[in-house]
């Protein structure tokens, strides 16, 4: 008899606590339907309890993010005006003082627990996810590839020359979660069915290892976009393009635009490489020179090998730019390349009297 009582009392305590926890979970962790108000006018209804980034993605609003929402890239910044809760220690390493003051948060860390009001750049509304087939795969140099993606079905993409898209790298090998990586579009904006990307291999990189070693012609891949405010400004100034490595991509797209729209502004494209094996698209650039009478392509090798038989410009790209442009011209500059190259180029351009607001760049 006492055995029964003992068992039942212990069971009762256990059941009571389990029931308490279940109830708590039901009521405490259920946030019901929450409203997300974006930019004051668009209202979305979502199920509470999830992270803002994912909740927005369900509504087809894509905030740029490279890590897939793990709080390790710090890109998915949005302004949360109301209902975001306190700033979390997982966010602070990615935010500057000003950002904290103007209520910037990481969308992947903020949970939708109640009605929430946020501000995002208007152009993010035109960003969509696209499904595409790899129709072309070409080696441009020993470590740079061109891939062409054709949109499936009757989908089309509207972008401005110079913008970029984010490729979704699926789970492969020992990679457990999807990641996104940004690549500039190299093809003309008039082609809304197919985009070209120029990709340079990153040593031990998650995304480029997939693209170089796993992806094949005919495969399906997803990307979202277009993003970015790097595009050709409307003016009559002389254009200076400076690029290195895969930074040629957005410049190429801009040159296509100039040909197609008959923009015959004076333009010079300085393309910096180490040696002959890094050069690519020289023929295309030559044909651009024929179609655009005021356009000049100046490739520069900083360290040519004897077998390159190099007769063109030599020296660091900054030295070549310094030699070619005058200090009294009316210039506008577009730069794409590594942060080191861009910073050094800006210095040279500034020394030539080009104001900072006329220097546009896309830093890697």
């Amino acid at each position: 008899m006492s055995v029964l009582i003992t068992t039942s009392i212990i069971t009762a305590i256990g059941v009571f606590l389990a029931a308490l926890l279940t109830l708590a979970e039901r009521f405490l962790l259920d946030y019901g339907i929450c409203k997300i108000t974006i930019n004051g006018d668009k209202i979305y209804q979502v199920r509470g309890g999830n992270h803002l980034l994912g909740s927005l993605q369900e509504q087809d609003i894509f905030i740029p993010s490279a890590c897939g929402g793990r709080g390790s890239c710090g890109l998915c910044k949005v302004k949360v005006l109301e209902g975001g809760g306190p700033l979390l220690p997982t966010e602070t390493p990615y935010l500057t003082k000003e950002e904290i003051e103007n209520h910037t948060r990481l969308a992947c860390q903020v949970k939708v627990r109640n009605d929430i009001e946020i501000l995002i750049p208007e152009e993010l509304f035109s960003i969509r996810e696209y499904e595409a087939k790899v129709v072309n795969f070409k080696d441009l140099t020993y470590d740079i590839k061109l891939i062409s993606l054709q949109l499936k079905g009757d989908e089309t993409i509207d972008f401005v020359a110079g913008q970029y898209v984010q490729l979704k790298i699926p789970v492969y090998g020992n990679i457990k979660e999807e990641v996104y990586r940004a690549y500039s579009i190299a093809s003309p904006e008039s082609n809304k069915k197919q985009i070209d990307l120029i990709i340079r291999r990153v040593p031990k990189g998650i995304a480029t290892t997939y693209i170089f070693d796993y992806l094949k012609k005919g495969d399906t891949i997803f990307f979202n976009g277009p993003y970015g405010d790097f595009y050709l400004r409307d003016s009559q100034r002389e254009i200076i393009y400076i690029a290195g490595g895969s930074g040629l991509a957005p410049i190429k797209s801009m040159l296509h635009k100039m040909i197609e729209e008959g923009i015959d502004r004076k333009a010079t494209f300085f393309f910096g490489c180490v040696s002959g094996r890094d050069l690519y698209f020289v023929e295309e650039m030559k044909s651009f020179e024929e179609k655009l009478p005021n356009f000049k392509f100046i490739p520069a090798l900083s360290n040519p090998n004897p077998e390159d038989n190099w007769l063109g410009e030599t020296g660091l790209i900054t030295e070549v730019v310094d030699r070619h442009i005058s200090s009294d011209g009316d210039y506008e500059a577009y730069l794409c390349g590594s942060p080191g190259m861009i910073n050094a180029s800006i210095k040279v351009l500034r020394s030539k009297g080009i104001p900072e607001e006329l220097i546009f760049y896309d830093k890697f």
Partner: protein
Amino acid sequence: MKQTPELDRIQELMQPGVISKDGFLGNDTRNLTDILADDQRIVTNLGFTHQELANAMEELTEVGKKAFGNPVLVRGFLEVTVDSSKGKMASPFGGLFDKENVVVVNKKTGESIRWTTLNIHMIRDHGFYEGKGSYFRVEPEDLVRVLELYVG
């Protein structure tokens, strides 16, 4: 040895395929807290601080960076090459860093050592040199020997 949940979370981010393809730990099975403690000891025994090693690395990186991928000779015998890749690299401890691979060859001995901008940050701010067997592990002894750093 047990460690804080915070270090557990960071160690989770260091696994292969989370932030980087091969992870930050190589084939090291120790807990992060032990890796940090062991390297701290090694560096102290060498007579340096993390700060000093990171400064030496950063100094060479800054010089090499100015040559956009070309080798530069520093102190007469160190050949420094810095190669930039597109994109930013996330640190498991938080923060984003330029993707820059640095290779330094000691012309006197022919030995070389490699690191990234992220390594410099992780060494300076967290005393983390990556796990044994990791591709980007910076072995403190090798660093001191190849760069010919002297105490004091």
